């Protein structure tokens, strides 16, 4: 045998040896919407999983923003090309849940695949959002966050406020905002990003007020919104409208576009996602901290618990049992305590299991970084009630736009707060009724 043919032989043998395990591997497509450091987390998780076993290979694919990823998943499903795992933001939960046949409920898949799965292991405030009214988990929580109140400690000192004692209630917050305004923060005392999330969804849960009948839509698509009947909603909206006039409160838009107002020092008190942490750490040139969202003391039982934001992993329907087995294995891998601990402490996402949270707490991690515990304390403040489990409305993306529109028309004086609240509920109900008809079958 010549040297040449020997080389050829060994190359062929090498190629075969390399190829055969790959042939046996089942590929699992994972579409997600995370960029930058968070994208690295996704890639690292997939690589670790792939290295941990030989049968399955998770392939993460970045598909754009949250809405883009959801739309890509929908389009792919309609074309018969859906991925196995689709990351969907919390707003899309209603849309996913009602798509019977398009999704494979996680609890069902875990059972069929014979994976150990205990819904009680997950933080109830997180798993509750993605479960049916009966407590069946439909999707796998992945990256969760909640809304917290960020504040500028330097500004507090300047205004003669105690930076170690942030305001607890809304009246205290408005009082502090007035003092901050007097101390030179005259463009904006307090503000928030994600207007509907802050002033309707989180507000309802935190004060234990329902947004609609049927457990905020979780018990059925025939839910009817009724939060305009709560005097506390009207009081809050009236306060915001009143304080907008002299910018003690100043509106910062529907999305998180206005978050820069906090890091630039313009708004010393700012309510937004706990996920804002990375941005604050990188950009704020002042001493900062966060605290729980304010509440109205007259509300019975307030503060209740907050609801989550962020995204979860949905398993798409119509795949082979072998593939589901791989997805189930991957989900078990994700829920592993040490992996969750690492994910939480490195990325700032909330730990999704109780065990992971307890472990981080026991390690003393939060002593140095209390701001990472604030959202968890809010979420676990009290056991979730029917009003604070979460919400499940189809077309929620559109409904949020309508809510923002109505809040805006109250703030700019086109409507009274009462009229705006009524319209927000009425228009929301119209959308729910239309969605109900598509989801009924």
């Amino acid at each position, binding site marked *: 045998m010549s040297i040449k043919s020997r080389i050829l032989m060994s190359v062929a043998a090498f190629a075969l040896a390399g190829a055969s395990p790959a042939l046996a591997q089942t590929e699992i497509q994972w579409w997600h919407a995370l960029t930058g450091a968070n994208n690295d987390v996704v890639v690292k998780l997939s690589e670790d999983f792939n290295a941990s076993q030989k049968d399955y290979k998770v392939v993460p694919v970045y598909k754009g923003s949250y*809405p883009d990823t959801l*739309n890509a998943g*929908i389009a792919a*499903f*309609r074309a018969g090309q859906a991925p196995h795992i689709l990351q969907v933001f919390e707003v899309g939960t209603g*849309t996913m849940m*009602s*798509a*019977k*046949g*398009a999704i494979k409920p996680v609890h069902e898949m875990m059972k069929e695949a014979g994976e150990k799965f205990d819904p009680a292991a997950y933080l109830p405030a997180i798993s509750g959002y993605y479960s049916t009214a009966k407590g069946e988990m439909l999707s796998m929580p992945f990256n969760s966050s909640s809304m917290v109140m960020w504040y500028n400690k330097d500004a507090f000192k300047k205004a003669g406020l105690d930076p170690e004692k942030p305001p607890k209630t809304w009246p205290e917050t408005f009082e502090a905002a007035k003092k901050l305004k007097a101390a030179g923060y005259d*463009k*904006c005392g307090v503000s928030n990003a994600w207007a509907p999330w802050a002033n309707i969804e989180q507000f309802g849960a935190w004060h234990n007020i329902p947004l609609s009948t049927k457990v905020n839509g979780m018990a059925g698509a025939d839910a009817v919104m009724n939060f305009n009947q709560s005097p506390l909603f009207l009081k809050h909206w009236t306060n915001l409208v009143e304080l*907008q006039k002299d910018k003690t409160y100043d*509106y*910062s*838009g*529907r*999305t998180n576009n*206005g978050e*820069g*107002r906090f890091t*630039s020092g*313009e708004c010393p008190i700012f309510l937004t996602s706990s996920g804002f942490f990375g941005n604050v750490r990188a950009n704020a040139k002042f001493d900062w901290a966060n605290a729980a969202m304010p509440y109205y003391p007259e509300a019975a039982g307030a503060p209740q618990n907050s609801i989550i934001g962020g995204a979860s992993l949905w398993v798409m329907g119509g795949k082979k049992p072998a593939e589901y087995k791989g997805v189930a294995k991957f989900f078990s891998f994700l829920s592993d305590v040490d992996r969750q601990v690492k994910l939480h402490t490195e990325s700032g996402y909330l730990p999704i299991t109780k065990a992971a949270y307890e472990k981080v707490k026991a390690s003393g991690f939060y002593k140095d970084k209390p701001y990472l515990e604030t959202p968890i304390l809010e979420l676990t403040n009290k056991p979730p009630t029917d009003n604070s489990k979460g919400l499940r409305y*189809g*077309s929620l*993306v*559109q409904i949020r*736009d309508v809510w*923002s*529109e*109505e809040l*805006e*028309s109250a*703030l*700019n004086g*086109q409507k009274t707060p009462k009229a705006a609240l009524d319209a927000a509920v009425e228009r929301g109900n119209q959308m729910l009724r*239309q*969605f109900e*008809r*598509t*989801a*009924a*079958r």
Partner: protein
Amino acid sequence: MQKNAYFKGLTIPFLLLLPQLAITIVFFYWPASQAVWQSFLLEDAFGTSTQFVWFENYQMLFADPGYLKAFINTAIFSTFVCVFSLSIALLFAVMADRQIRGAEIYKTLLIWPYAVAPAIAGVLWIFMFDPSLGMLARGLQSLGIPWNPRLNGNHAMLLVILAATWKQISYNFLFFLAGLQSIPKSVIEAAVIDGARPMRRFWTIVFPLLSPTTFFLLVVNIVYVFFDTFGIIDTVTGGGPSGATETLVYKVFSDGKGGSNLGGSAAQSVLLLIMVIGLTAVQFRFIERKVSY
């Protein structure tokens, strides 16, 4: 001997037409017919349940005060954008057409913005006019003008009109300049000899001779404001505040893509298509008569 300028028989003309027809059918008629079909359906996002509901999507649109508002917004938005972008571009073109030093640089600079994508153009304008981050917004505020497009609908509308106009000026400028340069110099010279002043020369000679260009641009600009501006609106205002800058095409985009309301969105796009066909027909029927080629 006379050459035939046309083909005998039908085979070759049809063969030559075929690629064009195929492209038109695949990329226009097929999607358009899908939109019409979709507008009669009530469907969830995944297409797992579909009902045929006749004209219900249309009825809902006409019952929706937001749709009427979007219609009015579109009328205001498109009128201002067309008038501003055409008149400013004409002014620039007339100035660039003169024999001035550095005209080439001037022309190049004016054409550049056309290379900017609508969404990027929107972001540029938001950078300048965002009430808390924008340099120009701060300037306005320091002059005592309470500039706040986040809550003031008129400010928001003004901002999207400016951004959309700015984006379109280059395109119009290019065509106007080409039009001006094709006007025979001898005609103008004759007018000068007759003692006509610049303004009079412009309105009696140049402008009528430009009318084919102007008409073409009017049609193109209307199509632009109706269909091509949602990127700008999405990045600058997102349709807000309280729907003040939601135009018809933006509503199609946000209801269909963001809201997964496919039937309603399809009904809107069918109506939009009819409107633009109607507008174009009116333009060709009535305005084109005033055009002298």
